[in-house]
């Protein structure tokens, strides 16, 4: 790989990993709330989580621009109070990737949480575990397959995210030009096919890596899972 390609890969990995790492707990929290609680507004929350999946990514990017942009309500607040600027920064690319990956992660996790037998949670409670300990020692580990599946889906979605990123974070080399944006940029050039193919193969290899990692993690916990499930 050329140094320029290295830079793109490094940036993409940084953006994607941060996006997935930040989204994992949020997604799990949402999945848990949606799976285990009945409250007014639950349906609205469900719909809201799905939104980035339904809207064309460009629109999501535009909404992010209106909200987190320097003139947007949250963006202005972040910039004035914390000095954090998201637009046109790699952090903005991470935000866009995170938002796009969220619905996929929530669904997979929710599916696994709903499959956890509540009788086991009950058993933990009689053994003296409070709600919190029962959650961390029973629900959370038993929904691991969903966390891993959600992680893989989220990683793949985040590393491939294009529309929201270019709209919200722009296409700035070294700052927000992730793999998909680099591919797009090359695709606009006549004769860019070879560069496109090279970059696409790199993207594929990266996510194969994520896939292998997740399968390995699943297998590591297979001693129990192969039987539990």
């Amino acid at each position, binding site marked *: 790989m050329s140094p320029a390609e290295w830079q793109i890969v490094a940036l993409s990995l940084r953006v994607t990993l941060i996006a997935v790492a930040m989204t994992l707990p949020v997604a799990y929290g949402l999945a848990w709330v949606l799976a285990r609680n009945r409250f007014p507004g639950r349906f609205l929350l469900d719909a809201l989580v799905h939104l980035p999946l339904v809207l064309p990514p*460009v629109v999501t990017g*535009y909404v992010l*621009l*209106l909200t987190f*942009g*320097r*003139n*947007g309500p949250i963006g202005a607040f972040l910039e004035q109070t914390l000095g954090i600027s998201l*637009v*046109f920064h790699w952090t903005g690319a991470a935000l866009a990737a995170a938002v796009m990956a969220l619905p996929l992660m929530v669904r997979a996790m929710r599916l696994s949480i709903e499959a956890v037998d509540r009788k086991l949670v009950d058993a933990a409670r009689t053994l003296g575990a409070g709600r919190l300990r029962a959650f961390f020692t029973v629900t959370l580990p038993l929904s691991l397959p969903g966390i891993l599946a959600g992680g893989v889906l989220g990683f793949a979605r985040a590393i491939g995210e294009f529309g929201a990123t*270019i*709209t919200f974070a*722009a*296409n*700035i*080399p*070294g*700052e*927000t030009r992730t793999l998909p944006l680099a591919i797009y*940029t090359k*695709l*606009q*050039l*006549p*004769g860019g096919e070879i560069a496109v193919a090279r970059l696409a193969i790199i993207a594929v290899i990266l996510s194969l890596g994520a896939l292998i990692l997740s399968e390995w993690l699943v297998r590591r916990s297979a001693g129990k899972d192969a039987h539990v499930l």
Partner: protein
Amino acid sequence: ASQPRGPIVFAASSLQKPLEELASLWVEKGNDPLVLSFASSATLARQIDNGSLSDLYISADEQWIEYLVTAGRLDDSAVRVVATNSLVLAIYGEEGALLASQNVPTTRKFVTTGKITTGDPETVPLGRFAEQWLQSAGLWDAAKPHLVPAQSSGAAVKLVLIREADGGILYASDAASIKRLVAIRAIPPESHSPIVYQAVLLPSSAHPDAGDFLEFLASDEARQAFARYGFGVP
């Protein structure tokens, strides 16, 4: 971020090749490297409207310059035309192949046979110019069923190159700079609005070199670069 860098330039994707060459020329002159962000003119304009940090905007679409002027984001007196373009009818062909004159279809036949691609008239400037021409030539209704609206001028070129389209109404610049595209006829420029690429210094720009780069874009040296890629010069 610690390295010194030149101005941030938001530019229409169709200008990618000449601008990248100009960017290296700029560095060769001892300047700090530019930051180039390519996207569609519309995407860039919306980003500028929402407070982008860029110093310069180079648009392929007058509409969006007007939009930003109306929105009070920029001053139209600062707008400079840096290049122009024109339309051609183009097909896929071997490099340097000269078409025997009897094989060249008439314009009417060209736009009413098989699939002809151009930009989407609603979203892509290329397509808007093509529609203007077809309307003025009285060919629009006959051609419309044959048109495949592509999402950018680059995408239209791709469709011709992989021969999913039998031909295209494309920018002369693309036909001139791409080996396997053969322009078989030029479209009279007066049949559509002028195709101009406008550069403008954004009022929010704080970079000391931004003005200089705009001057450089309008220089003879820059014009030669644009011309090398098939663009017209103002």
